[in-house]
């Protein structure tokens, strides 16, 4: 087990260094000048703008050679300092992310977990019941194939614009102050439903299809025939099949945690939902190097951490993997 862990940790550290380096380079390859964009809001004082541009280029260290910026960046990252946002000047990036993160967690965790549970359940059901399967499969395929933003726009159009059941944007109404009151929670949940649904439903399709295929495969396996020959109840058979079918789904969960970030960005943009995805979008549009770096850093860490957990859980759950590493 220790060897397994050691090897994994080395791989994770290398991945982290590589990802952070890319995170540093990519925004700097974009055309344009972030300070100039920032100061374009201040056009009425031409001479001052010219002067301030030089001042802030220096203040942000953007006049230094790239390798020097890179070293400074790593030093800061290791100190937990993500710098000051250019676009949201002079707010620290760490604070922006800290304020946005709760909105992500409140949207992501429930949608991933709920879609995983419901999707697996529905998939198993469909795999067992051929008649139901023929109705459910097209729905699953439709859901899985929908891009997040497209599905989000569809939901927004139907439930918000046409039926006016849910609000179109934001995390809560403009006229309400966040507090632990019933009125606020109700208002918050009201705004939460549509972004949640678009993430939940799209992911649901994928889980259900995966589970359904696995169940059908497992039901054909020798051990199932053996159990049937022994005269086990359908319940017992399903329990064993389900357990075996779950393993790939857990791996899938890890991968999904990585992919969801991309989907989450578009959903948040559609609903102007103030999470990391939305902030990241604004950072990119305004070339805010530090904000882009910060957001990606959080995403990288989250994905790595999620994968790491799954790796460990996998070793614990699947006896084959455990055996391989304990012996080796």
């Amino acid at each position, binding site marked *: 087990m220790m060897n397994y862990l050691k090897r994994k940790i080395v791989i994770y550290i290398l991945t982290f260094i590589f990802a952070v380096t890319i995170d540093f380079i990519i925004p700097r390859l974009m055309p344009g000048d972030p300070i100039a964009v920032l100061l374009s809001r201040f056009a009425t004082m031409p001479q001052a703008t010219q002067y301030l541009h030089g*001042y802030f280029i220096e203040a942000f260290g953007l006049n230094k050679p790239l390798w020097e910026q890179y070293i400074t960046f790593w030093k800061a990252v290791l100190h937990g300092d993500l710098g000051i946002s250019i676009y949201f000047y*002079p707010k620290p990036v760490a604070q922006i992310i800290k304020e946005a*993160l709760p909105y992500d967690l409140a949207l992501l965790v429930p949608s991933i977990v709920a879609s995983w549970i419901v999707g697996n359940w529905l998939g198993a059901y469909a795999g067992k019941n051929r008649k139901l399967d023929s109705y459910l499969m097209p729905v699953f395929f439709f859901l899985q194939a929908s891009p997040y933003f497209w599905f989000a726009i569809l939901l927004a159009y139907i439930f918000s614009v046409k039926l006016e059941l849910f609000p179109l944007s934001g995390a809560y109404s403009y*006229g309400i102050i966040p*507090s632990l009151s019933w*009125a606020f929670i109700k208002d918050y949940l009201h705004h939460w439903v549509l972004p949640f649904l678009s993430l939940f439903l799209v992911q649901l399709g994928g889980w259900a299809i995966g589970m359904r295929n696995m169940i059908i495969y497992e039901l054909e396996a020798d051990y199932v025939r053996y159990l049937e020959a022994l005269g086990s109840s359908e319940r017992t058979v399903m329990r064993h099949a389900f357990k075996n079918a779950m393993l790939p789904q857990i791996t899938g969960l890890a991968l999904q945690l990585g992919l969801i970030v991309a989907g989450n960005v578009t959903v948040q943009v559609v609903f102007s939902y103030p999470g990391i995805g939305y902030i990241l979008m*604004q950072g990119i549009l305004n070339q805010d190097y530090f904000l882009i770096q910060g957001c990606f850093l959080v995403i990288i860490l*989250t994905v790595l951490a999620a994968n790491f957990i799954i790796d460990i859980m996998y070793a614990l759950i699947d006896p084959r993997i455990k055996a391989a590493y304990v012996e080796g």
Partner: protein
Amino acid sequence: MKRLVGVLIGAFVIFGVFGQVVAAQEQELPREETLYVGGGLWSQPNNFNPLIPWSAVTGTIGLIYETLFNYDPLNDKLEPWLAESGRWVSDNVYEVKLREGLTWQDGKPLTAEDVKFTFELHKKYPGLAYHQMWEWLQEVKVIDDRTIQFVFSTPHYEEWKYLLYQIAIVPKHIWQNIDNPVEFANVDNPVGSGPYKLYKTDQMRFILVRNDNWWGIKYFGKPAPKYIVYVIVYSNNLALSMLVKGELDWSNFFIPGVPDVKAQYGIVTWYDEPPYHLPANTAFLFLNTQKPPLDNPEFRRAIAYAINPEEIAARASQNQVTPADPTGLLIQYPAFKKIYNKEAVDKYGFKYDPQKAMEILDKLGFKDVNGDGYREFPDGKPLKLTIIVPFGWTDWMEMIRVISEQLAIVGINVEPKFPDYSKYWDDLTKGNFDMAINNFGSNVVATPWQWFNWVLNQDVTPIGENFYNGNFGRYKNERVAELLELINVEKDENKKLQYYYELQEIFLKDLPYIPIIYNGAWFEASPEHWTNWPTAKNPYAFPISWNGYWQMGGVKVLLNIKPVKAATETTTTEEKTETIVQTVTVTPTETATSSTETGGICGPAILVGLAVVPLLLRRRRS
């Protein structure tokens, strides 16, 4: 198991959001006392530092912090605000007398020392916006508590007029303890002298609450709304739907379909007929005067004749904008009208005349040699130009489509292009473009010099080096440089007028850029909760709430609008809300400091922490 998961999900939802919210009392802002405003906030409100006005959120200057003077563009009047009066006591000394009884929001008196301190901050910190005024301002003298003298080495009369209503005064007793005012976000508890205090901010809005101890009540009365909620609205369509539902009271967005909205919902605009709005600035077609054939004034003139601004106004903005005068000057406003050189316009001005455009082009030798319908250079080289505007700016995108169609009629091949904003701005300021639309600095201002200094500024850098002044096409003319300098430092109004006249004549003859339309001062107000909005029939204020415009009329709007339903029991709730203000403004301070220490990566940290749990469990078992 399932139940447990359900509880976990619920807990995540609730703690995720409420974790950082202190359990305060339930509060919904009373609708009849709250004014919802939108149109001037485009990113999270997180900077209330009036000394960095390009980054400060709208309302920081004007509502929380105040300037010595306000400016009324409708009557061209510098209105004394913190100042009671201001005058030139000699050619290079400007004396300001402050009003009596000025106080800061924390109760301390606002004196001449604060004014001196504020101006000297700009000298001390080069990162502050108006640092460069110290190149011609020599000294700020405090004569007594209410009198200040500004002594100039070279008085820049025009620039000074602008600064008088731009520089917000900050309290010395607070700002002298601030390490670096350039990096000071000032969100925790900004203390200004204005009629409103900051109540709360979050990612989508900020809320201001009325300062009932405002010094100005005895001079101007009390502003009507108790709360102002300034919201970010990300699209014009969303603004429209909020407006008609009564969720937005005062909108400064370009809203499509204004006539229908007016007829159906009684929405108030400045004019009842097209163009519905006052002009806010001039949108120019900038031509790169360093690139052939655009370096030829006659070629530029041909383009000017070929463009029909009427069609642009109709197609791009549904006639909510008007075609610009050949000078581009905002002659609807008295400050511009009084310097307007009508004779020169009659003599050298242009109007839509494609026939004439073709004649000029023929004469210049630009002819269609290869028969593809487009003209070539006289030496036969193909001629193809591009126009750029930022992607997503739909009205401008339509504008350049129309322009390229119109230029095609006279045989000039122009391709409209839509780069991302940052790329557009980079190309524009580095001179890597043929034609571009822009209007950023051509605003309604107290002095047309400001306007000219943007569009014709002569500190031109070579192509490839950034240049942010409005003279994006890098038009060079020594006489223009002289005139801009002369107008700024000339005290004699008559001489100044002659310089202005000459400047316009040069502009019309040389035609470095083509004024296309006057962009609107978009203003739509809902009469559902508030009435007595300013209109052309009741023109008490310039109705714009954008950043930098509150001291040009926004505050007056607040002083004059009236609630539809009179608020009940305001006096009883007052004390209660006072205490809430306290709790709310104190808590962010704590979260702000703790966040810088933890680095905002708590989420991943928790996940990493969770990873250890199975390990520990595992070890215990074996």
